[in-house]
């Protein structure tokens, strides 16, 4: 087990306590950068998809994991981001401007929505966000001249400084672009968490009463959390639009919202890494199911392709399993595994025993 000897406050303030941790991240980033040269086009596209989902997951994680607010309608903000980005580009605005504007639009909308929303808590907020999602969906259909309504809209290919980042023609470039965006966002997220802004989010999550007593403007903090979260998710939506190239409102269905929730809960609520673990699961499982299905079909002749809803069923079962047996998610399980390996053979069985909390009514808030 490695011990880190801290000699200055900076060791705690830095993102990584020492060069070992920093090295591991550098290696990871290096591998990711070299991915286009290591895997074929199909898997590179899948990796891009995973990265986009991670970005969306980061957005939701900020809200749910670190600010304690629930949102069941985050796909709506992805939709806003996608439509603003594609819409602006179709109107001639270059991507370099359209992209941040899309995030800004989603973020502002989120912040505005937050202001009445912060008066609600828990389940009321959850259902309010769900309602909002339905409304956004309907608005997209109604605003047909701008959004292409039911027919859909085309997201033009991205060009930056003369270099092509088309999702099909220059997938490598597109992948790298997404990678850079995701890396920058993760860095900014980590910065937020180690700064007074992040601490105010955590304070609001854990005890609104004492947050207020400490001078934190709870309404403004929640609105900021919502704004940042929706903004990041909006950016992810914009990228998703480019990834799919031609989309309509059905791309951002209620199932996407639920998938996003899966990403943050199965991945590990409250950890940045959780968003990535969850995204990997979400994008990998359909692939695995497809492989399994083809395999079963080829070897044993059982055709599972005809059963509709099998994908969602398997996801649901996995989700139920995680909630019951591993509520800290994949990252939580990884932490336990790592602790076991580092402490071997001294790891104790009940080291991570979950403290059972008895329900105390939330109706007295």
């Amino acid at each position: 087990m490695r011990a880190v000897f801290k000699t200055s406050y900076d060791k705690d303030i830095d993102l990584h306590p020492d060069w070992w941790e920093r090295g591991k991240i550098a290696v990871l980033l290096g591998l990711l950068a070299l991915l286009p040269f290591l895997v074929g086009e199909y898997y590179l596209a899948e990796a891009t998809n995973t990265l986009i989902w991670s970005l969306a997951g980061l957005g939701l994680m900020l809200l749910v994991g670190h600010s304690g607010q629930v949102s069941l309608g985050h796909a709506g903000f992805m939709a806003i981001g996608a439509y603003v980005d594609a819409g602006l580009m179709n109107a001639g605005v270059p991507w370099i401007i359209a992209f941040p504007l899309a995030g800004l639009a989603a973020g502002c909308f989120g912040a505005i929505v937050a202001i009445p929303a912060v008066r609600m808590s828990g389940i009321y907020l959850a259902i309010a966000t769900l309602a909002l999602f339905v409304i956004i969906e309907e608005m997209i259909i109604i605003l047909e001249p701008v959004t292409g309504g039911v027919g859909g809209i085309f997201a033009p290919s991205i060009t930056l400084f003369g270099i092509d980042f088309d999702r099909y023609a220059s997938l490598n470039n597109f992948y790298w672009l997404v990678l850079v965006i995701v890396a920058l966002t993760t860095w900014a997220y980590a910065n937020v968490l180690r700064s007074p802004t992040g601490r105010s989010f955590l304070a609001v999550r854990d005890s609104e009463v004492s947050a207020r007593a400490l001078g934190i403007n709870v309404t403004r903090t929640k609105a900021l959390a919502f704004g940042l979260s929706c903004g990041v998710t909006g950016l992810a939506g914009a990228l998703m639009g480019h990834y799919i190239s031609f989309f309509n409102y059905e791309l951002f269905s209620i199932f996407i919202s639920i998938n996003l929730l899966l990403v943050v809960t199965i991945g590990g609520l409250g950890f940045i890494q959780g968003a990535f673990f969850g995204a990997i699961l979400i994008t990998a499982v359909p692939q695995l199911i497809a492989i399994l299905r083809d395999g079963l079909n080829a070897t044993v002749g059982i055709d599972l392709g005809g059963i509709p809803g099998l994908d969602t069923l398997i996801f649901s079962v996995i989700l139920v399993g995680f909630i019951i047996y591993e509520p800290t998610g994949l990252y939580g399980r990884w932490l336990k595994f790592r602790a076991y390996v580092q402490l071997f053979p001294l790891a104790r069985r009940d080291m991570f025993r979950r403290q059972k909390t008895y329900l105390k009514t939330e109706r007295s808030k």
Partner: protein
Amino acid sequence: MSLLEVTDLAVHFGGVKAVDGVSFDVVEGEVFSIIGPNGAGKSTIFNLISRFYEPTRGTIRFDGTELTALSAHDVAGMGIARTFQNIELFDHSTVLDNLLMGRHRHRATNWVQDLLFLPKVRAEERAHRQNVEEVMEFLELEAYRDKMIAGLPYGVRKVVEIGRALAMGPKMILLDEPASGLSVEESQDVSYWIEDMRRDMGLSVLMVEHDMRLVTQVSDRVLAVANGKPLALGTPAEVQSDPTVQAAYLGTDVSEGAVA
């Protein structure tokens, strides 16, 4: 010089007069205690000062400013810190993080600067950490620095809450039953800390407390309330020998704490 002036404060919840015409003042550098039987409205007075409740009547002036015009989160900015009767710490953070959150009032960076973690943010973080370390040293919490609140014993959590209030760098600290649930030794520590807060940090302390030994040991003046109404105001000895106070404490052995 009066730091806090409460005049004819009252709050009615429906038909219940939780606080009914309470007036007192806290002089700068003073330790002022509020005592009374359970349900007397002591914590309600705190919640009124913290602006969690809206008073039906009365004024609260702190350092010349009328508090009833401010919202709850502005009260901290005025330099008033408080602890809570049922500990309201941030359970999923470490002791260090809880104390750092107390520094919010002295925040000098906005969220954009935080996002980019500019050098100014780093410098501020170092300064906050320095300040918080001093508080931890004062309260002897260094051993618990990186421990999660959720796993700490009750007595330590109470101390962390005091630490978080101190980290704010306040002018006045409101302690809501600081000794409840603590052992004799821990209560003794609390009395030493209150003395140090007054003497070394120049704080004014407003305290709600049931432990009469602690009250008589540290307080300069005491206000006794019952059923929301004030009974007596004066030095600990004066208040304890007041017949109306003794009557309100029916069944409690008041003479026990009289020997200072």
